[in-house]
């Protein structure tokens, strides 16, 4: 490895010695791919023929009218095959896995989107596949677990630690240090040891590259601001980075959970609770105690419920290039409700965080200005969570009846 993936003081590659050569091999494969224009062309072709890229940039006429401020555009990553931006990263890494000649992939997943995307890629590419998922997330994202299994993946519920995303990453790393010869770890976000943050951000940059062209075509100019939710940070990096040299304000929205004051949240950059540390292979802001033990986090959105954050974003935060905000669970459900009714769009709970902040700011902006919200995924997967949030009685009855039918079968 020529460089170890530092962004300011963040990033690096803190892995057990046994992984060194594996990571080096990956880095080489990635560097070779990146400097080969045919690779990106092939990637774009596959994303066009298997998923539906370029995804549209939708003008949200009704929301724009509703808020009476900036013109609101929505980047439609929800239309990707498997329902989220995760497909981009996964298909890209799948191409690299082929180049490296490996036959098995593993992945962690929180919301289950990355797991479904990886299981899908594995089915398509003929790899065997194991997905690690915190036991808590297995419960709140059951439909995704079901589909992963149907796609042929083995899903391992992780009962260690807080039983959420970070614990799934640990388990995936444990698998990797054991099986790296034939196994590639398809990390799902722009975190982890170098070269993952750079690689994932590169694949996801397809979002921002498209959006940049689209908004200029539609409005004749660049947007004033761009909003993206931030779990690990991959969808945010993906849409932000191609605008990094432009006069465009970039806003990352983290999980405010039950409110940052309660401690039950996952706001690493927008709230004072986090500190710089090293875990899961990289250095960044982590929600941790004074001893360096990771704290429990909470978000209604399983995909944002994570202690760390992309080192690329940590650096952009420190530089002041990206502004970070947070949205509470309650605000998120409200924004979701409004978006469904006004535009017929069902953003994932994760993505709805970006909508919250955009909705707060749009009214104070001018109709001459436009903003882009990255709708990183669709909300179908969240039906159990959303039904609970809305306390839908018909849904409860339906589940109760189904359970009764199972009991009598």
């Amino acid at each position: 490895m020529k460089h170890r993936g530092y962004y300011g003081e963040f990033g690096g590659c803190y892995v057990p010695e046994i992984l060194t050569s594996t990571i080096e091999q990956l880095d080489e494969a990635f560097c070779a791919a990146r400097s080969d224009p045919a690779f990106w062309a092939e990637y774009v072709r596959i994303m066009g023929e298997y998923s539906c890229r370029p995804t549209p940039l939708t003008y949200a006429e009704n929301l724009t009218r509703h808020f009476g401020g900036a013109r609101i555009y929505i980047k439609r990553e929800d239309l990707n095959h498997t329902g989220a931006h995760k497909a981009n990263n996964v298909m890209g890494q799948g191409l690299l896995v082929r180049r490296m000649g490996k036959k098995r992939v593993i992945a962690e997943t929180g919301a289950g989107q990355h797991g479904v995307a990886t299981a899908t890629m594995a089915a398509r590419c003929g790899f065997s596949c194991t997905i690690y998922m915190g036991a808590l997330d297995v419960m709140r994202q059951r439909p995704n677990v079901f589909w992963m299994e149907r796609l042929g993946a083995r899903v391992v519920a992780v009962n260690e630690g807080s039983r959420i995303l970070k614990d799934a990453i640990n388990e995936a790393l444990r698998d990797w240090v054991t099986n790296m010869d034939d196994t590639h770890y398809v990390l799902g976000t722009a975190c982890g040891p170098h070269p993952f943050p750079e690689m994932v951000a590169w694949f996801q940059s397809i979002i921002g590259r498209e959006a940049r062209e689209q908004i200029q075509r539609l409005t004749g100019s660049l947007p004033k601001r761009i909003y993206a939710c931030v779990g690990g940070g991959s969808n945010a990096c993906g849409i932000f980075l191609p605008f990094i040299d432009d006069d465009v304000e970039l806003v990352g929205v983290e999980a405010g959970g039950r409110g940052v004051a309660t401690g039950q949240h996952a706001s690493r950059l927008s709230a004072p609770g986090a500190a710089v540390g090293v875990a899961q292979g990289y250095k960044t802001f982590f929600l941790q105690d004074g001893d360096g033990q990771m704290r429990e986090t909470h978000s209604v959105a399983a995909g944002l419920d994570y202690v760390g954050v992309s080192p690329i974003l940590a650096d952009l935060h420190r530089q002041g290039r990206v502004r970070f905000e947070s949205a509470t669970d309650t605000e998120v459900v409200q924004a979701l409700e409004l978006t469904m009714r006004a535009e017929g769009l069902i953003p994932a709970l994760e993505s709805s965080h970006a909508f919250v902040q955009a909705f707060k700011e749009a009214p104070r902006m001018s109709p001459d200005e436009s903003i882009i919200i990255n709708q990183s995924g669709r909300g179908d997967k969240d039906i159990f969570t959303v039904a609970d949030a809305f306390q839908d009685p018909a849904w409860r009855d339906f589940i109760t009846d189904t359970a009764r039918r199972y009991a009598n079968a």
Partner: protein
Amino acid sequence: MLEHYLRERLREKGILLMTHIVLGYPDFETSMNIVASMVAAGVDMMELQIPFSEPIADGPVILHANQRSLAAGSSVRRCLDFGREAAARFPIPFLFMSYYNILYRFGVERFASVIKDSGLQGTIVPDLPPEEGAEYMQAMQKHGLNPIFIFSPASSEARLAYVASCARGFVYCVARKGVTGRETRFSDQMDAYLARCRRATNLPLAVGFGVKDRRDVDFLRGRADIAVIGSQTIRLVDEHGPGAVGDFIAGLR
């Protein structure tokens, strides 16, 4: 100096034993009793693991010990105090083992200073490759401590040489891929690997991951200098209580 101590001991014994415990598991008092039994049974050196919430290099046994210790309220401060007390009471070298974030949050230089002052000999930090360890190595060197680095079966010759160039005291050779606590086949393949390790450094070689009984230790005799017993003693304490540790250690060699 640690290396010197090890060489002296090696002159008396064909192979040395290093054991590993997770501090505060099941509690600090028991931890101290286990240390006492181990020392009494003839252990030559000990790793004291400061628990961390994300121990990525550890398998289920040590992982759970970490979690249980933390859940019981153990703190880094308490672990450091434990190390100081152990080093004062017992005549063998002690090392801290932990993940880098524990040192980083504490302050790497401050950490080195405290453990030096406590009488420990060095640290093992499995998620800190030498490339990321400039500050760490400097602090260890300044305080005359041993940063224990790791050889792996996946390392190239060049890599072994590079790691060796940063190592002090001894080198920890992980016996195989994977995390701690799983079965290891001590076979011919291991032979070739240990020969490569031997060629790469003049420092004593410790071998860990999966060493669990006298047969394994016998295999290592002559091929390495130190056999590391990790998860197996924790399993023993879990199943038979701290009292069983002494006999077990005594029977290994």
